């Protein structure tokens, strides 16, 4: 296994770029889906408003939505004749760029972050919320306190979101195009090398992907670990 990795690194320095791009795209997407998913999950878990059930049903659907369909959707939106692509706005990424991949991965992962965060927050004793308010918390401070109590579950939600995108291939292939040196990531590289018959290389890249996913999860777990101990 290590031999295989060594082989790639010496044979193909471009692999570093692929690894770096994979991490960059997925971590940016994870940042966006956390920024959307955690507040959304907290709002759904802690407040009652009209349309809440509908939003939850949509979120649950999103949690199991096929990534290729999201890829297709993003493709159609961003393509030059699509509703967003035709705007030519500098804020909207073009197809076949890392930006487009970030968009697709954000859409894939935020329902997972939101859904699991909601579940974690709902698991916190509602009486604790009253206790916190009674100690003088504003609504904001109360939400923060509940998220802190639910921190183990919130970190799990982010890990689930990360898992859904670092290993995803269909959507990034469609909207990224697997262009060498520009939008090739680990998963699309595996697909390509396999189709070319380079099974040992494909396998080695797969090992790297596994290793990276493991390291990323260890890093996130340590976040959780610190949350377990005293302040």
């Amino acid at each position, binding site marked *: 296994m290590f031999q295989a990795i060594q082989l790639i690194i010496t044979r193909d320095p471009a692999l570093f770029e692929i690894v770096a791009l994979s991490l960059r795209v997925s971590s940016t997407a994870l940042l966006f889906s956390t920024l959307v998913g955690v507040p959304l999950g907290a709002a759904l878990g802690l407040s009652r408003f009209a349309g809440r059930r509908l939003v939850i049903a949509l979120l649950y659907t999103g949690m199991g939505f096929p990534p290729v369909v999201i890829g297709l959707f993003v493709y159609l939106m961003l393509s030059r004749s699509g509703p967003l692509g035709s705007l030519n706005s500098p804020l909207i990424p073009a197809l076949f760029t890392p930006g487009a991949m970030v968009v697709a991965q954000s859409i894939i992962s935020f329902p997972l972050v939101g859904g699991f965060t909601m579940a974690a927050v709902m698991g916190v004793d509602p009486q604790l919320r009253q*206790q916190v308010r009674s*100690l*003088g918390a*504003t609504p904001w401070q109360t939400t923060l306190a509940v998220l802190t109590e639910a921190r183990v579950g919130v970190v799990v939600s982010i890990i689930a979101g990360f898992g859904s995108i670092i290993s995803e291939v269909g959507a990034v292939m469609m909207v990224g195009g697997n262009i060498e040196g520009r939008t090739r990531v680990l998963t699309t590289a595996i697909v390509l090398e396999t189709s070319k018959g380079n099974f040992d290389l494909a396998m080695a890249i797969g090992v790297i992907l596994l290793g990276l996913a493991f390291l990323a999860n260890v890093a996130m777990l340590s976040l959780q670990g610190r949350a377990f101990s005293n302040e």
Partner: protein
Amino acid sequence: MSDFVYQLRDVTKEYNGRRVLQVDGLDIRPGEIFALVGPSGAGKSTMLRLLNFLEHPTTGRIHFREAEFNPSRPMPLKLRRRVTTVFQSPLLLNRSVGANVSYGLRLRGRRNSGRRVEAALKEVGLKHMARQRARTLSGGEAQRVALARAIVLQPDVLLLDEPTANLDPYNVGLIEDIVQALNRQRQTTVVLVTHNVFQAKRLAHRVALLLEGQIVEASDVEMFFESPRDPRTAAFVRGEMVY
């Protein structure tokens, strides 16, 4: 100073259309220990939630100092922060004991609260436990931390919901002493919910009996126990069931 901290007028509280509280008029005076007794389900905890402005009344109004709390008007944060509750169960945060006690101060933006936290923990006899995780405390310790977390805020009004239920006599005595000292030294107004009539007798200046959401009788402690006006009070004081 005015002669009331709270003034309740025609206050009702309903859940799903069911009325669980109906208080036509009640004043709570500054610096008193006011005990609220009554059987389970009478509405005692509900009353405390209203007095802490955690829930709005369905109808009526609660005057607190210069402000009015009613079905639609919230209590300003500054006044709300003059009141705090110790609930029936300790409800500690999953953090250290020290972090629990300093929590309310940090909500108010006070950073260097170390000395006050230490003093509050000392008062409840848990001086050396600041670093321990709250989850690992015994029941009595947890309840004392909950009390420390409230008194560190030096509230004007302390609401206590069965603070000594399920505790051993040692912890009961400790908590009663702390509440009494707080009331004497800081003139903290205390509303104490208990279904232990002896505790009410030991601590309270005035006592009210709540039955099915209504106040049957509210009077000075001697009067309440020695010559109750209402036969249901007499029965409750004698320890008879009054459902």
